[in-house]
């Protein structure tokens, strides 16, 4: 991996993030494919860049500032505030930002504790969790999500980007273990400590709280909705979404595809049941969908997957669609998956993340939906 960060900064990153995550952390700063492309795709599949102009954006859990600086590059006319409680990471974020020209719209603020927000933070139009929500302890999630919701201006949007989905058959962030997501905490903690395929050595030293902090418990749409006031609703995606696809896409390798069939069917049923709130077919007007999808199309890296295969998936998972004019598929490698294999190159077998949930803060009298879910599926389907 090539980097413009000096060795002194990279050594600090290694100390902050741990050696196992150093390449990942540097790649998030240096390799647009590691974070920025994904963020571009997801943000602009919901919103036009114009909608961010002149607005304040909070990057919650900014860490060393990779997501904050990416947001600053993508949204040069917005004020971006990076917030974290870890002083070492924030110091590093400021140090890296001082070398970047795009950081002129960026400021970093430290939280007094993991479960509180600084006073005088101000109101925001967008609150973004990029790869962050799953690192909060359950108590912190219960406390912080409502607090952050209150910081949203009317029609503001909460965006949860790239958190592991807790319904996914593989816990892909902290342990890499199958079915861990469905086990009680005590059992999950034991298995994660002794049988992890990610961060094996570190996990042996971790207690349950450390494992939670490492992201062993992901999140899902229901969990987030339950923590927000009743005015939070699912904003329907432009990009099609199917929970069943989480399972199917994550299941690879001999034998496992058999497990995918019942799992996918069960999740497909949930999609249909809750589809009105968290997935399924877009309610956007066709024109709006076309406009946004066109923008997505500009940044999507279409992979060589046959349209026929995609079409089958769409029909199987999502059901009849108004009209499929064009289908794009992208292979979205996922950094949470198991040991990376080449120097800093992103590799991944499973895409387990809940890539984007965007929630508008719907005020009384303001009609409209508003939690938006884009999948964490390797193959994303964009309907133009």
């Amino acid at each position, binding site marked *: *991996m*090539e*980097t*413009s*960060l*000096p*060795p*002194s*900064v*990279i*050594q*600090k990153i*290694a*100390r902050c993030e*741990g*050696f*196992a995550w*150093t*390449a*990942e952390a*540097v790649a998030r700063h240096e390799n647009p494919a590691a974070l920025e492309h994904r963020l571009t795709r997801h943000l602009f599949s919901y919103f036009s860049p114009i909608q961010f102009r002149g607005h304040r954006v909070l990057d919650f859990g900014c860490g060393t500032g990779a997501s904050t600086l990416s947001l600053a590059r993508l949204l040069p006319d917005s004020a971006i505030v990076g917030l974290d409680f870890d002083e070492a990471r924030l110091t590093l974020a400021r140090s890296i930002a001082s070398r970047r020209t795009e950081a002129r719209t960026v400021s970093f603020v430290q939280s007094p504790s993991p479960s509180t927000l600084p006073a005088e933070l101000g109101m925001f139009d967008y609150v973004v969790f990029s790869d962050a929500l799953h690192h909060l302890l359950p108590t912190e999630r219960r406390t912080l999500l409502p607090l952050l919701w209150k910081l949203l201006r009317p029609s503001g949007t909460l965006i949860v980007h790239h958190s592991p989905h807790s319904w996914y058959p593989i816990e892909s962030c902290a342990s890499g273990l199958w079915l861990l997501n469905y086990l009680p905490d005590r059992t999950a903690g034991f298995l994660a400590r002794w049988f992890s395929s990610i961060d*094996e*050595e570190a996990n042996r030293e971790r207690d349950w709280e450390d494992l939670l902090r490492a992201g062993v418990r992901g999140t899902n749409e229901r969990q987030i909705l339950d923590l927000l006031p009743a005015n939070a609703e699912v904003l329907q995606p432009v990009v099609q979404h199917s929970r069943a696809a989480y399972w199917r896409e994550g299941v690879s390798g001999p034998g496992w595809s058999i497990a995918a069939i019942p799992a996918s069917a069960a999740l497909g049923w949930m999609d249909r049941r809750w589809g009105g709130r968290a997935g399924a077919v877009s309610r956007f007007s066709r024109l709006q969908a076309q406009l946004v999808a066109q923008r997505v199309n500009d940044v999507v890296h279409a992979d060589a997957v046959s349209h026929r295969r995609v079409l089958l998936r769409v029909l199987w998972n999502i059901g009849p669609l108004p009209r499929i004019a064009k289908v794009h598929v992208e292979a979205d490698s996922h950094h949470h998956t198991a*040991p*990376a*294999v*080449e*120097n*800093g190159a992103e590799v991944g077998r499973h895409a387990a993340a809940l890539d984007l949930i965007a929630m508008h803060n719907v005020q009384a009298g303001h009609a409209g939906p508003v939690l938006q879910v884009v999948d964490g599926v390797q193959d994303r389907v964009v309907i133009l």
Partner: protein
Amino acid sequence: MATAVFELAPSTAALAPPPTAPTVYQYPEGWLEFVPLGAGRYRLHVRTRLEGAYVAR
């Protein structure tokens, strides 16, 4: 070009100045290798020591 190797304790402060030749900083948890490319850029290799073996990251 010869590669310089430095063995460091985990708490060792960052080294300065930036290397001008391929340099390895070795820690108990793994090592970082920097190959200068010029214009302030480096090729970075990270190796993590995992149960006695180094795993490329």
